[in-house]
């Protein structure tokens, strides 16, 4: 269902006109209020009034994650603190967290975009939303919460963790919509099975999954094991949180970006050159309507592709492909680019092992080694050593065929690999490269 018919189905020219007007206002605003942007614009020799057409966006400087850290905590805000009603922060796995702020109107815009998001995924008034995204500094929990309320659905703000109790609430409250990370969805199914609860007997109709990269195969796995449709969403706290882009349930092919609020670009991760539609590269966002924490050409490090082909749902918005990896999480093993999500695709395609893996990269006598831990399943278990070794060699061959890199597969016991309730830890890099 299209929640905001007018803005989600605008003709291209009308959308372009809105984007240009908003971009011009944004450039003026950040140049006047954020010292970082004044300096960055001046360094590039560009003034806000140089933005005469949408293409002129390319004249503006990029914003990097490091810039946000350098301006920790509030120096990137474009409004005085007294107008900021909410603070969120991203998990600071490396160094300080990145801090984002919202004005009253930003929260309102965000809720509206999340209502659009949930509607696109097939949610409506009358639905009960089991929201297992974490509540707190992370944008996932509250983002979904406000969106579901705005849509008029009933929200269960269960947050992450205490999985057994979540199963109980699912049985008793009869939620129809599940929102969480895709790996947590599979974890819920496992715990439900352990508790003797058949997930498919629950009332769920659709799940809205994001906050970590996943694959088409994982979608099939979730849909068959959990008995619901699985929809992919995209967002990141720096840009707003969830609600930047979403798949429509009609097509489930590519995520519609809410272009009246964000301008996406795809660039070459090394040269920064803007790439044409259809070419994969790093996703870059400019926020058009945010007041407290606007961003010019923010480099997400997420790898994707943009395409303009019309969608059967009727939305005219550009679509982005699934995130296929991170330009900075990318591992280079013996000169080969390895994205951890590719390993998952290989395991999913086999259907006889679980899609959980742990990559261990090391450097032994100047040679990179790649070990992939994979959980044994009853389907491949045998009482004969040579059969299990054959399974290991067979998975190694699949990985070699798909990634072009040889590795050592090691079978481990079921559930030996950590199930994360947030973003899963999938790589241990023991090389001392930095």
């Amino acid at each position, binding site marked *: 269902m299209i929640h905001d018919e007018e803005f989600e189905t605008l003709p291209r020219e009308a959308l372009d006109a809105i984007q240009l007007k908003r971009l011009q206002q944004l450039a003026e605003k950040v140049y006047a209020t954020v010292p970082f942007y004044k300096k960055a614009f001046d360094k590039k020799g560009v003034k806000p009034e140089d933005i005469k057409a949408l293409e002129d966006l390319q004249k503006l400087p990029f914003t990097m994650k490091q810039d946000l850290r350098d301006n920790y905590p509030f120096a990137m805000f474009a409004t005085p603190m007294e107008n900021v009603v909410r603070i969120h922060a991203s998990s600071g796995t490396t160094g300080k967290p990145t801090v984002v702020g919202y004005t009253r109107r930003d929260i309102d815009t965000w809720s509206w975009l999340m209502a659009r998001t949930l509607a696109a995924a097939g949610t409506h008034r009358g639905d009960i939303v089991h929201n297992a995204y974490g509540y707190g500094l992370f944008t996932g929990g509250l983002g979904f919460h406000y969106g579901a309320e705005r849509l008029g659905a009933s929200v269960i703000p269960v947050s992450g963790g205490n999985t057994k109790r979540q199963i109980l609430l699912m049985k008793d409250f009869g939620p129809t919509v599940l929102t969480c990370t895709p790996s947590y969805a599979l974890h819920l199914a496992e715990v439900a099975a352990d508790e003797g609860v058949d997930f498919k007997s629950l009332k769920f109709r659709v799940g809205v999954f994001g906050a970590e990269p996943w694959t088409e195969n994982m979608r099939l796995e979730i849909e068959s094991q959990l008995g619901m449709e699985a929809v992919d969403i995209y967002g990141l706290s720096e840009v707003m949180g969830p609600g930047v882009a979403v798949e429509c349930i009609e097509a489930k092919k590519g995520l519609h970006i809410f272009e009246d609020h964000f301008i996406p670009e795809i660039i070459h991760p090394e040269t920064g050159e803007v790439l044409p539609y259809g070419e994969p590269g790093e996703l870059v966002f400019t926020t058009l309507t945010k007041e407290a924490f606007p961003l010019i050409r923010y480099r997400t490090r997420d790898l994707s592709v943009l395409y303009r082909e019309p969608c059967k749902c009727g939305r005219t918005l550009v679509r982005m492909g699934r995130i296929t990896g991170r330009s900075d999480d990318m591992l280079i093993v013996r000169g080969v680019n390895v994205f951890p999500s590719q390993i998952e695709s290989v395991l999913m395609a086999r259907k006889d092992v679980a899609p959980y893996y742990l990559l261990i990269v090391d450097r032994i006598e100047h040679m990179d080694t790649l070990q992939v831990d994979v959980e044994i399943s009853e389907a491949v*278990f045998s009482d004969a*050593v040579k059969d299990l070794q054959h399974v290991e060699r067979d998975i190694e061959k699949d990985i070699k065929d798909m990634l072009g890199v040889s590795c050592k597969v090691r079978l481990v*016991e079921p559930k030996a690999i950590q199930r994360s309730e947030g973003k899963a830890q999938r790589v241990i890099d023991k090389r001392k490269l930095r």
Partner: protein
Amino acid sequence: MTVEQISIFLENRAGRLAEISRVLGEAGVNIRALSLADTSDFGILRLIVSDNDKAKAALKEHGFTVGKTNVVAVEVEDRPGGLNRILEILSRENINVEYMYAFVHHSGENAVIIFRFDDIDGAVKLLVNNNIKVLEGDTVYRL
């Protein structure tokens, strides 16, 4: 004339073997014979127990990956050359032994050898035709 054996996947990690024996003990399952195959990565524990279903259920409940295989139990006299006679017969007919292990039961006179064959029916037929004593499952579980 086959015996059911259960096998368990084991990561090479301290305490896993003890965990298995604890689970079986608590379930009241007696271990008749066992063999452990190991590689640098993992191990496979093979067991003949007093109650297969009970053992399997208890182990699975504790998260172990458990398989079931049919093996052949053969009784041989516990004296020099006893095993060799059987292996000669098998080798003559090109019956391949996947793996084997042996134990002596408490009556003391005879040893029991557990064989895992690819061609289990062919092997049993051959052994019986050569007057080798092949034991029934129920006999072995109660030994």
